[in-house]
């Protein structure tokens, strides 16, 4: 990243510029930012291409024969050959690749081996639920993680810091699916605080007419407040479970960056100016903003994998649950579609957050 150096080593500018006006005006910066946006957008086709290739290679050059994996070791040669030709595995690699990429670019991911449905329809049906889950979980995790991370960074070395570090170490050592099961045991079985972990809507509620495929939004559009309440109630445990896995990551990066910022000259100067401690913490968080956002992007990939398992536990009916089912059933076109969509989504998040970072930091020279 091309930020200008702000540390002590910053070379003083020559005397001749001393009386000059500010070097870079706001309009120029804005134009440069849109240039960066354009550049990043141009990168999207490349990312898509890479994802499609990975998903293609997954089936094509992995050791072992997918046909054999589907049929099991008892299959005879005839059956294997049939499946191989169904998969197109009997044609040359290059030809298959071109066909596949061509298909995907036209939105044709093939049909499911088992349901016969076009994969694209399934993705459109299941993806929004996953997005809702991951977004809610990330928001919750960011809120909690950044709060406790800030507390720890601010009180570095003292009791609150030690407590937060114990919490982080504990949460890091619990696999997400175990946390989910323990939460189900406590909140559903013991205390009866939440409904059973089966799907997103109660039996008495009816699904709203599909408009956006996002259940929460569709419920709001339909004005079904009871349904919305029921859905949110049922979302609590899955969202909490997924968030628990991400909280330590947010907390750690925040603790480190805020802790570092607290010792910086900038914070010392802010205090020397008599700013309140709230304001000082706000300054420290501003310094921590870029690393936290960058980290969120990296976290997203892990969240997608984690959410697949959590969705399965809570019957969330999202893309992750669908994808895992496809994987276990060796529904190869579905697996490929799943890999492409999840991979593409994470790369997209990466790009967007990169742009957000660039938009927020006035020092970045968009070149």
């Amino acid at each position, binding site marked *: 990243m091309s930020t200008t150096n702000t540390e002590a080593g910053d070379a003083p500018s020559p005397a001749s510029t001393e009386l000059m006006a500010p070097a870079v005006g706001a309009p120029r910066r804005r134009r440069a930012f849109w240039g960066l946006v354009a550049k990043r957008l141009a990168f999207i086709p490349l990312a898509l291409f890479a994802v499609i290739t990975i998903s293609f290679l997954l089936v094509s050059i992995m050791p072992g024969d997918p046909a054999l994996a589907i049929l099991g070791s008892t299959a005879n040669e005839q059956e294997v050959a049939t499946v191989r030709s169904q998969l197109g595995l009997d044609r040359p690699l290059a030809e298959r690749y071109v066909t596949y990429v061509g298909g995907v670019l036209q939105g044709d991911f093939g049909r499911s081996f088992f349901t016969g449905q076009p994969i694209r329809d399934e993705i459109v049906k299941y993806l929004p639920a996953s997005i809702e889950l991951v977004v809610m979980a990330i928001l919750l995790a960011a809120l909690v993680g950044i709060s406790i991370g800030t507390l720890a960074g601010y009180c570095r070395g003292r009791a609150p810091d030690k407590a937060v570090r114990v919490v982080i170490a504990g949460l890091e050592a619990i696999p997400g*699916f175990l946390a989910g099961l323990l939460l189900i045991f406590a909140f559903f079985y013991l205390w009866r605080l939440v409904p059973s972990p089966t799907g997103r809507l109660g039996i008495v509620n009816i699904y709203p007419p599909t408009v956006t495929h996002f259940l929460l939004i569709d419920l709001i559009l339909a004005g079904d407040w009871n349904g919305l309440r029921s859905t949110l109630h049922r979302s609590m445990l899955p969202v909490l479970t997924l968030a628990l896995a991400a909280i330590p990551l947010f907390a750690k990066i925040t603790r480190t960056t805020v802790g570092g910022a607290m010792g910086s000259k900038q914070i010392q100067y802010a205090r020397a100016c008599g700013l309140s401690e709230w304001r000082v913490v706000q300054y420290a968080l501003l310094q921590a903003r870029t690393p936290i956002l960058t980290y969120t992007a990296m976290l997203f*990939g892990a969240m997608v994998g984690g959410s697949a398992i959590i969705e399965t536990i809570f019957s969330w009916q999202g893309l992750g649950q669908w994808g895992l089912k496809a994987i276990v059933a060796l529904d190869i076109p579905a*697996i490929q579609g799943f890999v492409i969509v999840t991979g593409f989504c994470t790369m997209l998040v990466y790009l967007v957050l990169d742009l957000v970072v660039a938009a927020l930091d006035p020092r970045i020279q968009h070149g």
Partner: protein
Amino acid sequence: MASLLLSAAPMRRHVGLVAGALFLAALLLASWFLPLPYDPIRPDATATLQPPSAQHWFGTDSVGFDVFSRTIAAAGRDLPIAFGGALAAALIGVFLGLLATTKGRGSALLMRSLDAFQAFPLLVLAIAIVTLTGNRLEMVMFAIIIIEAPRFLRLVRAEGLAIREARFIEAAEVIGAKPLRVLLVHLLPNVSGVIAVQLSIATASSLMVVAALSFLGIGVSPPDPSWGAMIQAGARQMTGGQWWVALFPGLAIFLVVVCLNLVADALDVILERSSR
């Protein structure tokens, strides 16, 4: 000098290292050599879903397996896979990481591809790979390598670049040391500390991957005991109140991960101290 500083490190850190390592060793040795109260792979159909008791310390599951025996036995399977995977990832990651400290197009290209690769949801990829290649145990290791090796690579490269800045490498190159010799003789020993720390962390996170995979029934062949699969077996019981089926294997994972992180923390402090 180094030993003096080492002894000045807080004793607490050594306690963490020793306690963590002892617990892990004890668990592993128990699973290999200790006679277990019940056969971990033969269920007793007359004793299903028994709560913890004097006969069945951790209770039994819905098939009649003794949870205690299986929890201990699973350590003998899960830990070596996790450690083996982490070790393999370390070998590959360190090798590529050292190469990436050399200047040149290749190393820039390598880092770029790594960026793209790590942006991918790697757990999803790992699950797909293991399943598509026929659910074999070696492929679980392969999945671990895919996830962990990039971390070693980045770490070793960052450390290596910092060390390269130091004079003596330059001096060695000036007097005509072969590049490979520079990597192996001068760089490798200096990054061995961070590798040891990362190996401990990577083993912990590999164990999580192994558990996640076997929770999904991937990479395990029943009735072989595995913590993840045992938690899966207890998943349905959670809504019925039979918490012990999933809790005890879960606790095992938790303790092992905590111990590995303790060891990593302690190594970090001790090694960093002695290198200063």
